C-alpha cells in the first residue's frame, strides 16, 4: 500500500517553544488513524503541518508524494469546532459548497458540478433533507455532519478531522463513527479525539502525541507510551476503556 503521509524527524517551534519534537509518522492508504494526547500536546499542530498551514522548523513532510501545499486539493479538513455566528444567513447547502473553493480558486463562480457535488456530499452524510435549512437552526450533531460534508465535497482522498464528535450527543456518536468507518472504505482518515473508548472501539490505529509522537502502526500503545505522553499514571486513562488499548502489563 502507498504512503499517504510521510513525516520524518519533524520539529515545530512557536518562537522558542517546542511544539513538536522529532516526530516520525507514516500514514498508509486506507488507514484510520486516531490521534490522542493531552491538550496542548500538538495534535492540531500536526494536522496543520499536514495541511501545509504550519511550516515545520526542521524535518521532512510529504503528502501524496509531494508538498503539503501541492497536495491540499486532495485533503478534506474538518477544523476544531469553533463558535460561529448561529444567526449567520447561510443554509447547510451554502456551507457545504464552501468546500469546493479549493477546486475553483479565486474569482470563479460555483457551477452545476459544484452544486451536484454538494448535494452528493449531503446525501452521503444523510443530511440532504436539511439542505435548505439555516445552519444555526440545526442541532450540534447535524451541524457537525454538515461540516464533515463540507470536508467531503472536494472529493478528497485524505480526511483530517479535528475532534469531529464535539457537539454530538452520546446516542448519535455510534452512528457517526459507523459513518466514518464507511467513508474509510475509500478514504484515508486521521482523526483527533479525546474520547478514548470510542477511539479504541472504531479505530484501527492509534498514535499518542505530546510533543513527541508514540506510534507502532497499530492500535496498541505501551503503558510507557501513554505514561510518557500524558505524564500521569496509566490507570487514570485506561480505566473504563471497554476495549483494550494497552497491552497486558503488571
Amino acid at each position, binding site marked *: 500500500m502507498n504512503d499517504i503521509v510521510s513525516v520524518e524527524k519533524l520539529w515545530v517551534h512557536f518562537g522558542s517553544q517546542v511544539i513538536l519534537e522529532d516526530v516520525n509518522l507514516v500514514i498508509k492508504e486506507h488507514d484510520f488513524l486516531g490521534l490522542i494526547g493531552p491538550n496542548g500536546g500538538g495534535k492540531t499542530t500536526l494536522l*496543520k503541518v499536514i495541511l501545509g498551514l504550519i511550516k515545520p522548523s526542521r524535518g521532512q513532510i510529504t503528502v501524496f508524494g509531494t508538498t503539503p501545499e501541492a497536495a*491540499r486539493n486532495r485533503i478534506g479538513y474538518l477544523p476544531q469546532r*469553533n463558535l460561529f455566528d448561529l444567526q449567520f*444567513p447561510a443554509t447547510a447547502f*451554502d456551507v457545504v459548497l*464552501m468546500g469546493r473553493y479549493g477546486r475553483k480558486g479565486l474569482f470563479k463562480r460555483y457551477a452545476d458540478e459544484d452544486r451536484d457535488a454538494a448535494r452528493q456530499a449531503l446525501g452521503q452524510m444523510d443530511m440532504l433533507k436539511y439542505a435548505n435549512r439555516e445552519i444555526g437552526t440545526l442541532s450540534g450533531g447535524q451541524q457537525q455532519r454538515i461540516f464533515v460534508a*463540507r470536508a467531503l465535497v472536494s472529493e478528497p482522498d485524505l480526511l483530517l478531522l479535528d475532534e469531529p464528535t464535539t457537539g454530538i450527543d452520546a446516542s448519535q456518536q455510534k452512528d457517526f463513527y459507523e459513518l466514518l468507518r464507511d467513508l474509510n472504505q475509500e478514504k484515508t482518515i486521521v482523526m483527533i479525539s479525546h474520547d478514548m473508548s470510542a477511539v479504541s472501539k472504531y479505530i484501527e490505529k492509534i498514535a499518542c502525541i505530546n510533543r513527541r509522537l508514540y506510534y507502532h502502526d497499530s492500535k496498541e500503545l505501551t503503558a510507557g507510551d501513554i505514561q510518557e505522553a500524558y505524564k500521569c499514571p496509566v490507570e487514570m486513562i485506561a480505566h473504563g476503556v471497554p476495549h483494550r488499548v494497552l497491552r497486558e502489563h503488571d
Partner: protein
Amino acid sequence: MIEIFQYEFMRNALTAGIIAAVLCGIIGIYVILNRIVFISGGIAHTAFGGIGLGYFLGRDPLIFAILFSLAAALGIGAIKNTRSRVSQDTAIGVFWATGMSLGIVFIALSRGYAPDLFDYLFGNILAVSGEDVKLILAMTLIMIVIVALLYKELFILSFDPSYGEAEGVPVQKLYLLLLCMVALSVVVLIKIVGIILVIALLTIPSAIGRQHARTFRGIMALSIVLGIFFVVSGLVISYYLNIPSGATIILTAAGTFFVSTAISLGGTRR
C-alpha cells in the same frame, strides 16, 4: 411632494441618496456579519484628518480623505495579525482620535478660509453636486464588481475565516480588501451623512434586513430597499421641517430599527 424635486440640488440629493443606499446595502451586510462596525467608525473619523490636510494644502479634501481612510483601514486591519500587544480595539481608538485631531489642527492652520466643518461631520446631502453624484455612482459600480467577483470568497471570510485559511482562501488579504472597500465607501458617504453618522447608514439597513430576510442575497436586497426608503423619506421630512438632512435620514432609519427590533424580539418570546 413632487414640487420639491424641481430644484436641481434636490434631484442631485435624491439621486445621490438612492445610489448611496445601494452601496450601503452591498457593503453593510459584510460590515455587520464581520463585526467591523467600529472599525468602520474609526476609518470614517480618521478621514477627517485628510479633509483638514486637503484644506491646508488648498487641494481637493476628498483625495486626502481617501488616503487617510485607506491608511486607517490597512493600519487597523494589519494589527489583527501581528503579535503586537496593541489590540484592534485600541488601534481603532488611536486612529479615530488622531484623525480628528489632525483635521482640526490642519484646519486651524489654514488661513483665511474656514470650511463648513458641520457639513463634513454631519453631512449635507443638499450640497451634493452633479460631479459628486458621478463619483458616488462610480464607487458603487466598483463595489458591485468586486462583490460579484469575490462573492464566494467574501462569504467564506464572513462565515468561517479559519476554515477559509485551511482551504487556501487568502483570508488576510480579503479582510484588508474588505476594510479598504469600507474606507472608499465611507468617503463617498461623508458627503451625504457626514463622518459621524456614516456608520449608521452602513449598518442600520442591513441590521434590519437581517431581522427579516433569511438568505444573504435576501438581506442585501431588503437593506437596499430600506436604505432607499430612509434616504427619500428623511430627505422629504428634513425639507419640510427645515432640519438637517443627514441626521433626519439616520433618525428615520434608527426609528425603524427600534420598531423592527421590538417586533422581532416579541416574535421570539411567545
